[in-house]
């Protein structure tokens, strides 16, 4: 019952992370989504990932567009500033925010309608620019908030609740992200917390454009037979290619694993992505191979999940732009204003 206030007192036994915070410190207000909505599981995974990484909640900026999915930032990290912007345009707002202060963590949450329909352009361009962010699409194949119309990720041939068949080609945002230059691309399922939490952690530590496509069933409008985004369908067609373990620089890396089955990817910030292969022939270091693999499995009806591609030496937008390391929003008159002497010279050059 969504109207009941959450109990305020924390249970004293709740486990604490490196910052001494409990999971509760990463929560938000109570969700107003439908009971059973996949999006709520993703919020829970975000909370878990941030807690495990011991992220400082107020150093996260969470941004979204419009839709049920885009509402979710209210439901986690209530110590963070949030921005529920306009439909399909979160990427530009996030990009701008990121430009203003490169020190925060940027978490963009969006829906498939928000990112693949109206927002496809902004989605694509934010990937090409290498904005340092974690961009999560909560992908249910429909517009939840406007009551169940197909979105642009709906698979061709899939059926709506009312029986209509989708005739447009569905967009695979993960493949698109790879093609457009995202340097960390994953896919997961809201029903698979074990897979999802480390993927989010990996994305948060990744120093570039990290994208996660999370299949997230809409129980109100897209969980029926004929849908390719129902819990049942996804459970039966999910093909995980690897499993991930994220080790931050704080932790010492000790254990040794037999080579081959395990791959370690070291990122800029010192964090290590430890990947255990589940599909022998999968190589997450090749963009082209990854795309081929994902697309040919899709042609067979399989949804490939896991860390699809990672480029550990990603260069982000600030590096491209050569921005100062100080957050731009901290610069004051002194750094910014050339002053009257410079102006006099400028005048002189114009006579």
């Amino acid at each position, binding site marked *: 019952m969504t109207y009941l206030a959450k109990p305020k007192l924390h249970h004293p036994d709740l486990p604490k992370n490196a910052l001494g915070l409990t999971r509760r410190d990463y929560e938000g207000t109570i969700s107003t989504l439908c009971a059973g909505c996949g999006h709520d599981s993703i919020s829970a995974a975000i909370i878990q990932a941030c807690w495990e990484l011991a992220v400082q909640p107020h150093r996260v900026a969470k941004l979204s567009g419009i839709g049920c999915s885009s509402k979710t930032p209210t439901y986690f990290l209530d110590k963070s500033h*949030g921005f*529920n912007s306009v439909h399909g345009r979160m990427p530009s707002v996030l990009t*701008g925010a990121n*430009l203003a202060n490169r020190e925060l963590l940027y978490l963009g949450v969006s829906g498939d309608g928000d990112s693949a329909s109206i927002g496809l352009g902004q989605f694509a361009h934010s990937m090409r620019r290498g904005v340092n962010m974690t961009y999560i699409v909560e992908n249910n194949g429909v517009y939840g908030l406007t009551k169940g119309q197909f979105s642009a990720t709906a698979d061709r041939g899939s059926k709506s609740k009312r029986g209509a068949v989708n005739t447009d080609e569905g967009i695979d945002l993960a493949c698109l992200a790879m093609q457009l230059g995202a340097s960390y691309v994953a896919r997961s399922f809201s029903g698979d917390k074990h897979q999802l939490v480390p993927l989010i952690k990996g994305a948060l530590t990744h120093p570039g454009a990290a994208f996660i496509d999370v299949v997230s069933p809409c129980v109100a409008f897209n969980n029926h037979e004929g849908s390719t985004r129902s819990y049942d369908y996804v459970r039966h067609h999910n093909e995980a290619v690897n499993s991930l373990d994220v080790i931050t620089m704080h932790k010492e890396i000790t254990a040794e694993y037999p080579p081959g089955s395990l791959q370690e990817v070291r990122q800029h910030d010192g964090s290590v992505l430890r990947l255990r292969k589940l599909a022998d022939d999968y190589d997450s270091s090749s963009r082209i191979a990854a795309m081929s693999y994902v697309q040919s499995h899709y042609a067979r009806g399989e949804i490939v999940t896991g860390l699809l591609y990672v480029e550990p030496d990603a260069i982000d937008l600030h590096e491209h*732009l050569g*921005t100062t390391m100080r957050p731009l929003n901290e*610069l004051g008159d002194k750094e910014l204003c050339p002053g009257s002497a410079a102006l006099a010279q*400028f005048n002189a050059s114009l006579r």
Partner: protein
Amino acid sequence: MKTLQATNDFVIKFANVNGSGSASANTLFAKSIARMGVPVSPRNIFPSNIQGLPTWYEVRVCEAGWNARRGGADLMVAMNPQTWEKDVAEVTPGGYLFYDSTRPMPAGKFRDDILVIGMPLTEICNATYTDPRQRQLFKNIIYVGALAALLGIELAEVEKLIGEQYKGKEKLLEPNVKALRMGHEYALAKLPCPLGLQVQRADKVGDKVFLEGNNAAALGAVFGGATVCAWYPITPSSSMAEAFAKHCRKYRMDKETGKNNFAIVQAEDELASIGMVIGAAWNGARAFTCTSGPGISLMSEFIGLAYFAEIPATLVNVQRAGPSTGMPTRTQQSDVLLCAFASHGDTKHPILFPQDAKEAFEFTADALDIADRLQTPVFVLTDLDIGMNERLCDPLTWDDARTYDRGKVLTKEQLDAGARFGRYLDVDDDGITYRTYPGTHPSRGSFFTRGTSRDRYARYTEEGTAYVDNMQRLLRKFETAKHFMPKPVVRPAAKPSRYGAIYYGSTAPAMEEALALFEADGIHLDALRVRAFPFQDAVIDFVNDHDHVFVVEQNRDGQLRTLLVTEGALDPARLGAVLHYDGTPITARFIHGDIAKRLSALQVTPLRRTVAGGASGE
């Protein structure tokens, strides 16, 4: 035939083909006159195209210092066969036509009432240069030399300018000077020097600078502390973003690290540009975009978000002729209503109207302060005429004691000290509420920004009373805005008058000149230059203090007049619309003629001051 005789007061028009390299020669010509202490105001008239179409450069030489377009051409430098007929027709009777006489022209192509001066430019070039590009480029310099001789421009000044231009590229310097002299000598030897039109050294330029509005506005953004610029190319605004980049590289590079104290993103379109500006401003950076009409249309939804969620944003709209793609290389003031009311729902946005490059510099810097202070999108409305033409104006000034007004922002210290924080809580009763930047404090001051309605603590709500409370506060804030906007400038007539005129932006130079014409006629017309919307009381009082007020603007529908009527609750019958909107800059001649006609009509038909209602003919 009586030829025109004038010193330091005439118009020369160059008819060229774009992409032919004439622009820099023409600028050289104009500047050399300014160097002689004689004010000039040049204007580019160019097509929406890169190469091969007609382009004109109009130089008004005017010792009195009027910067407006005058209209007409006393000397036509007809270098473009495409537009020959039109160009010849445009010459003032008694005026002069200078042309390339290499290919003989049939007699029917000239006029009897003007003096035709032929110079075989192509022939001279072909004889001197072999490289086709050189032939083309030096032809322009040669005619500058010839014109100097014809018009009495001191060659030394032209040469000095060339010297400055090619400083460090001495290899280019010499051949340019050579070409210049060649033209000069030829003219002295073979052409009817001096013409009746003459430039004579004066001291009317003083310390004025020669400056484009876009360049000035860009520098204003630098001085005003903008760190983020997101833009999308569109004529006539692109050169502002490009100038901002140039200035930043010069003034904003960290000396030690070589890193940039700025970030400029060429976005994929205008929706993204304004989105980035909003994101950056939300996150505490000063940010702006520059664009033109179509861009503002595309930004409409986002502008409403910034209005309602109360996020600062500075938008420089360098207006061009609309609607739609319209005439993208012509000037107009036709986005006033759009900017004032952009987006769906009840919205109103502050606007600043600079009159020239100097104010473009000042108002852009001011706008960044105002946007932070008001936490709302603020428009700076210039236009192609201001933005893309070099104009003489007073040198730019900056008060080093000035500090940025970042508006109401709570710091970590204030939050720690227990400051009460409600993002939309109006503690000062000025309609403006406190905000915090993301990341400020571990446990206090975070809030959720949204375009939906919410209560004073930024919590989502669909309650009608909370909604109305917020919407009324926004009106209060708009009222407060008036205190932060530049005040109108009043120019009273020599004697008290029942008539007034209101104008703004790039209309100012023409209006000032027109006022002088009225004064010369003995007609008294008080004038007020609006510099901002919302209008201060002084603007409304001005209208109320006169029987009839003309609103002079460069659009079809009298857009500022509409704003005055609705926002100032003024009777439209008392506001006459003086409208010029063919894409060329308005002239004093037009204003003077139109108002004079209306004034005499008004004096015949008694004013309807006491008659309520009835549609006005305007």
